[in-house]
């Protein structure tokens, strides 16, 4: 593999939160939302309104569960409220309508399914995403991409790690697992919002893997069998595979790189913590977990209320959308002591960085493996890694997709 063919300016246009490609999720939001969310959480666990309006974002921002103009909107802020909603998928459903898995499209992928339908589809792919499978992802796709990307700047003495490093790793990992070569990875990412264009690229790959399976994810999908509601086993249709591939591209190529950038920014801003992690790589795990708690890249996911219900003191009508502010819940003082402090030595406890309930992030162990491999390789190969004191330090930005501006570093 060579990653030198990845066009730096193109990566910046596709991934930079402030670029035109990302304004639709509120990428131009630059204020610190945490004091606002803390105040709202103190006032009540649930408020009427969308998260971006309650936060004071002036425009319209889109994410899962938005815009839904014909529905009432509420947002939950406390850990207990989110825990209750995540654990009651019958009352708080993932979609406002039924899902037809035979029609290819992101809107019919399993992230929107419920109950046994979701369980059957998730059960099919879960074995490829368990912790024990992380090594398969690392060896086949992650490690090579990580090392190649570092090769591009290792002799320069400086780099901008957000775009030159973090941005490309997950998209190369996922497209690699589809059997798509690196030189075509950005083409696929560029047409991500055009499902038909992505599917067009997948058609020959799925057909080829049906003829001759390889050691990759599409091969696993074409060989997988699933029992339908009548107990009859059948293979996944092409449409079902396309829907899953679309979900994976969306979920994987847009999230992990930002979380890796958040982790790096947190460590670089605290040289004494970075030094400890460099000395003792076992500390990388708690550093990543604390970064996930402290600033999760996706601060909100939504659920659809299926019946009138009183929820933490607020009447939620059937049909309403309940936005779950995971970022606020992750700093709820009812669960964490000094929640606004970044502290890698705090006792490990599950946060909602990867969501919760039956839809908890399928790719979370792959994401952790990517971040661990990426940060560790930087520490191995870039001595005296530090923020460039003459450049602007990384800032956290974004409404519904949060990440850092840039990570300008010096080394050597």
């Amino acid at each position: 593999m060579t990653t030198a063919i990845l066009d730096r300016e193109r990566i910046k246009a596709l991934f930079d939160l402030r670029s035109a490609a990302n304004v639709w999720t509120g990428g131009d939001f630059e204020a610190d939302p945490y004091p606002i969310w803390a105040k709202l959480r103190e006032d009540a666990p649930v408020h009427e309104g969308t998260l971006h309006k309650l936060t004071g974002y002036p425009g319209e921002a889109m994410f899962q569960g938005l815009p839904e103009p014909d529905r009432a909107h509420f947002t939950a802020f406390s850990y207990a409220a989110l825990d209750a909603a995540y654990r009651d998928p019958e009352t708080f459903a993932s979609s406002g309508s039924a899902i037809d898995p035979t029609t290819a499209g992101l809107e019919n992928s399993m992230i929107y399914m419920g109950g046994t339908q979701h369980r059957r589809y998730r059960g099919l792919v879960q074995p490829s995403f368990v912790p024990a499978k992380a090594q398969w992802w690392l060896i086949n796709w992650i490690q090579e991409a990580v090392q190649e990307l570092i090769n591009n700047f290792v002799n320069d003495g400086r780099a901008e790690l957000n775009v030159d490093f973090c941005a490309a790793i997950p998209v190369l990992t996922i497209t690699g697992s589809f059997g798509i070569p690196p030189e075509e990875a950005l083409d696929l990412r560029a047409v991500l919002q055009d499902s038909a264009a992505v599917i067009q690229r997948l058609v020959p790959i799925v057909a080829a893997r049906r003829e001759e399976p390889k050691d990759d994810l599409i091969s696993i999908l074409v060989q997988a069998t699933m029992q339908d509601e009548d107990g009859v086993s059948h293979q996944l249709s092409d449409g079902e595979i396309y829907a899953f591939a679309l979900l994976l591209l969306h979920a994987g190529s847009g999230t992990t790189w930002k979380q890796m950038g958040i982790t790096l920014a947190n460590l670089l801003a605290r040289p004494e913590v970075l030094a400890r992690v460099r000395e003792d790589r076992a500390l990388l795990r708690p550093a990543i977990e604390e970064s996930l708690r402290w600033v999760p890249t996706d601060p909100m996911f939504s659920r659809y209320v299926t019946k009138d219900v009183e929820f933490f003191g607020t009447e939620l009508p059937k049909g309403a959308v309940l936005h779950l502010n995971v970022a606020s819940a992750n700093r709820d003082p009812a669960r964490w002591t000094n929640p606004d402090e970044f502290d890698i030595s705090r006792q490990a406890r599950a946060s909602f960085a990867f969501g919760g309930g039956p839809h908890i992030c399928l790719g979370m162990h792959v994401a952790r493996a990517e971040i661990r491999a990426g940060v560790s390789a930087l520490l191995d190969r870039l001595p005296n890694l530090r923020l460039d004191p003459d450049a602007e330090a990384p800032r956290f930005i974004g409404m519904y997709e949060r990440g850092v501006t840039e990570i300008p570093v010096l080394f050597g």
Partner: protein
Amino acid sequence: MAGHVVIDRELCLGSGMCLVYAPNTFAHDEQSKAVIVDPAGDSAEEIDTAVDACPVGALSWAPGDDTGGATGDVPSTAGHGSTAG
């Protein structure tokens, strides 16, 4: 809480959250369902964190059968590799 951990295989999704917090206690079987490989593989606190972390409530504490002599309100063991369902 004294006792041992029970895994509800029907509820278990295979998310792997328990393996994050108590990796020496829990593993996945060939169906990606959680199983207990060493009832005392991690500290009582870590095992309790894993129970709390399960996103679908497939892990729970059942009273009794504790091999570690747990007393009071913290678990000392994941029990005897029990599975249910």
